[in-house]
């Protein structure tokens, strides 16, 4: 009777097509108890479809799904949840005006804390939530409002929500983490890694990420998807980033870190910041960025670097110090004045701040700098569309229809259009990028980085808030490290070529 237990999840020849496109082509996959499975692949490789099928949102055309040895058919997300599949979405889906406990309870289908007469039993609600939080080792007060939590703590609530269903003693829950680290700072990622190790004690985990080193560090096994099929499925031990990368993109090797020449420093800095301060965010920050130079602002969360970038763009106000653009001090700084002076800002929250999702790409590009797409107050629709098409082919935006609402494009393609919107101006002098690669796949990241370098070459000064220190080392000429709103270090990457990540981390924490 000592058979090996059946795998938590088994997909057998699962296929799914959309029109003529085979999003999933005969995918077979197993996940064992307590296993952490990494899932990587470029945008459009079929990851999303696979996850949607597991979450009960899409149904497979053909093939079978078994959980714990029993065939299952999900009619909707509730079925999948009842079977023990919990999903932590890339974009958080918590109700921010409710408490932690309410968010957890609201997701659970059994063990309701509703008393007779339909009244909420608060004591029990909080106790139940505390149990789930203890189980995953999250130190959170169930009575806290979600809006008061930091991003990583919200992620913990999402995880608690995903595992709060107890599918019965025989089976193991399956937790799907869809790019949970895409928006996390470095040390928050460490917390999440600890969390995943804890999860493995009682659950199986599918971990989706664009960051290959993370996958290799966290996962037991890694599956690579390419064009709807599995192109590689092996234990992480002995696999390198380059192996994964070549499995993802069909044989190409990972690009080497870009070697850059120090740009000739112009006499006048494009941006000069002197003792800039904003109450509660950053204090006494000074630096210069010259045309053609890339400055990376590195720091943990609450380092104040995001607020600093927004202040430079006029989206937040400063209460001390001064900003000089092209040698001229600014007064009563605003977004309108900043853009008129040649500044551009790519915000981190793309969907909320970066794009007008309901407008076409053509109109998104024309919104700020229509260029030849307008004469005085009048738009020239045909010229606008031609300008947009131009950018689409230059940045390889897909699908190639400039009249579709931009909100329907994938994140990477949206970001390319955001770049196009700002690059479509001859007057561009300073490009401020807040997490420009957030949530982008390898291909889109390369395109965006190439555009940043091209702008730089054309004499634009760049201020970059990177997702990772690696990104800073790859892109920047200079790095400013911030901690608790103060500048803790500055590194010139041309004179200090052997700067290690650890050196920078030491100044961050």
């Amino acid at each position: 009777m000592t058979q090996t237990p059946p795998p938590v999840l088994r997909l057998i020849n699962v296929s799914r097509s959309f029109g003529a496109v085979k999003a999933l082509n005969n995918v077979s996959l197993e996940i064992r108890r307590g296993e952490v499975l990494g899932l990587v692949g470029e945008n459009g490789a079929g990851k999303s479809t696979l996850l949607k099928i597991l979450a009960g949102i899409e149904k497979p055309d053909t093939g079978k799904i078994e959980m714990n040895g029993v065939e299952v058919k999900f009619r909707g997300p509730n079925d999948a949840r009842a079977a023990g599949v919990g999903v932590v979405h890339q974009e958080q889906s918590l109700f921010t005006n409710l408490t932690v406990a309410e968010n957890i309870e609201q997701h659970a289908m059994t063990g309701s804390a509703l008393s007779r007469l339909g009244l909420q039993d608060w004591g029990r609600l909080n106790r139940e939530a505390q149990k789930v939080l203890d189980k995953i080792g999250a130190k959170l007060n169930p009575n806290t409002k979600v809006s008061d939590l930091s991003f990583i703590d919200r992620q913990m609530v999402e995880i608690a929500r995903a595992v709060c269903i107890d599918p019965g003693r025989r089976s193991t829950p399956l937790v799907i983490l869809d790019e949970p680290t895409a928006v996390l700072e470095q040390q928050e990622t460490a917390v999440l890694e600890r969390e995943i190790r804890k999860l493995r004690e009682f659950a199986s985990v599918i971990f989706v990420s664009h960051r290959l080193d993370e996958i290799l560090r966290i996962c037991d096994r890694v599956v690579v998807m390419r064009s709807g099929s599995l192109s590689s499925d092996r234990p992480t031990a002995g696999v390198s980033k380059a192996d994964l990368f070549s499995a993802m993109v069909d044989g190409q090797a990972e690009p080497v870190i870009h070697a850059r020449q120090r740009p000739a420093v112009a006499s006048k800095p494009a941006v000069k910041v002197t003792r800039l301060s904003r109450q509660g965010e950053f204090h006494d920050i000074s630096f210069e960025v010259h045309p053609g130079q890339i400055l990376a602002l590195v720091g943990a969360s609450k380092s104040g670097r995001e607020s600093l970038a927004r202040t430079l763009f006029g989206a937040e106000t400063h209460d001390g110090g001064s900003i000089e653009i092209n040698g001229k001090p600014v007064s009563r700084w605003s977004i309108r004045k900043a853009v008129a002076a040649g500044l551009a800002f790519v915000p981190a929250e793309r969907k909320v701040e970066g794009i007008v999702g309901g407008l076409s790409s053509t109109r998104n590009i024309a919104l700020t700098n229509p260029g030849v797409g307008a004469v005085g107050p009048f738009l020239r629709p045909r010229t606008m569309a031609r300008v947009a098409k131009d950018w689409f082919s230059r940045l390889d935006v897909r699908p190639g229809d400039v009249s579709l609402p931009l909100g329907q494009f994938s994140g990477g393609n949206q970001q390319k259009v955001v770049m196009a919107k700002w690059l479509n101006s001859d007057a561009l002098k300073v490009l401020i990028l807040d997490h420009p690669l957030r949530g982008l796949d390898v291909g889109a990241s390369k395109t965006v980085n190439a555009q940043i370098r091209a702008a730089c070459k054309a004499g634009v000064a760049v201020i970059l808030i990177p997702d990772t220190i690696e990104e800073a080392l790859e892109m920047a000429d200079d790095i400013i490290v911030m901690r608790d709103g103060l500048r803790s270090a500055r590194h010139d990457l041309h004179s200090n070529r052997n700067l290690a990540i650890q050196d920078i981390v030491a100044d961050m924490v």
Partner: protein
Amino acid sequence: MMNKIQTISSSQPSFGGVIPPGGLTRHRVVAAWHALAPVLVFVSMLLIVGILNPNYLKPLGISIVTASAAPILFVALGQAMVLNIGSIDLSNAAISMVGAILVALWLPGMGVMGIVAVLAVTVAIGILNGLLVAVTQVPSFALTLGTLGLLQTAALVTSDSQTIYISENRELIAALYSTSLLFAPLTFWIGVFVALVYWGLLSLTRLGLGMTAIGKNERAATLSAVPTLPIKVITYAISGLSGGLAGLAIVAQAGSASASGLGSNLLLPGIAAALVGGTSISGGQTNPINVVFGALTVAFVPIAIQAMGFGAEAQSLVYGLFIITVVALTTSRVRGAVIK
């Protein structure tokens, strides 16, 4: 208690990734339907009524419908522009009432200049609305509900609660109603012209692009250096101007004005016409040309109800059901966003 509220995550999952090709086709079909729905709704209603009672499609029927559609059309066009930036102007019908009364008061003494002065006043009221909305950040629904009250009082005070008959120069404005073109009065055609101008403003100018961007995503618009404050003020000024034109249309038709007379209840028909014309109440979506058909539909419904032989007591009921049905047919759901 197994049935809990569905979470956002389960009803609107998002995994990123590419758009399936099927989705694109569906988008086009939905977009095409949305562009044509208001016209189709109006034409099919016309056909049904025409079959039931052909008299309504004769010149007299057309002139009655277009004449009653004209004031609704002006108010609806202004409302559509405000809805497009994601706000609402509950005071615009009251602006038209004040406008009508001022026309009746000023026309005898000032002639054409009186009309210009009235429009200037209504534009100024709109600018005030816009400034208050943009600067105080009070939700436009609450703020314009307040100005609605102020303007109603202003209408009663300026008219001394009396009906004001135009004693002199009446021909200056009566011609707008009595002159007809293809059986429709000039006031209606002016409305069509204004609709074309607003359409051009929205689709062919940077100002219009900014308006729609604000309606769809104000934060992104702000960070794209769209001048949101002036644009809001201009939009409310347009609503004020449209209200003033509605006032002219009322006086042209009635020859008199009062705080409770013809046109005193234009607010809801105006909103209904904007919505039936495919305007989204959550912002960022309108087509002034379709609002023309929305206004015609809304003006035609009471007539259609009569033609279908419903009794007077059932008219409001049928009107209500009809509006729900038509708005359900014509509302754009392309955004897939929360419907406010």
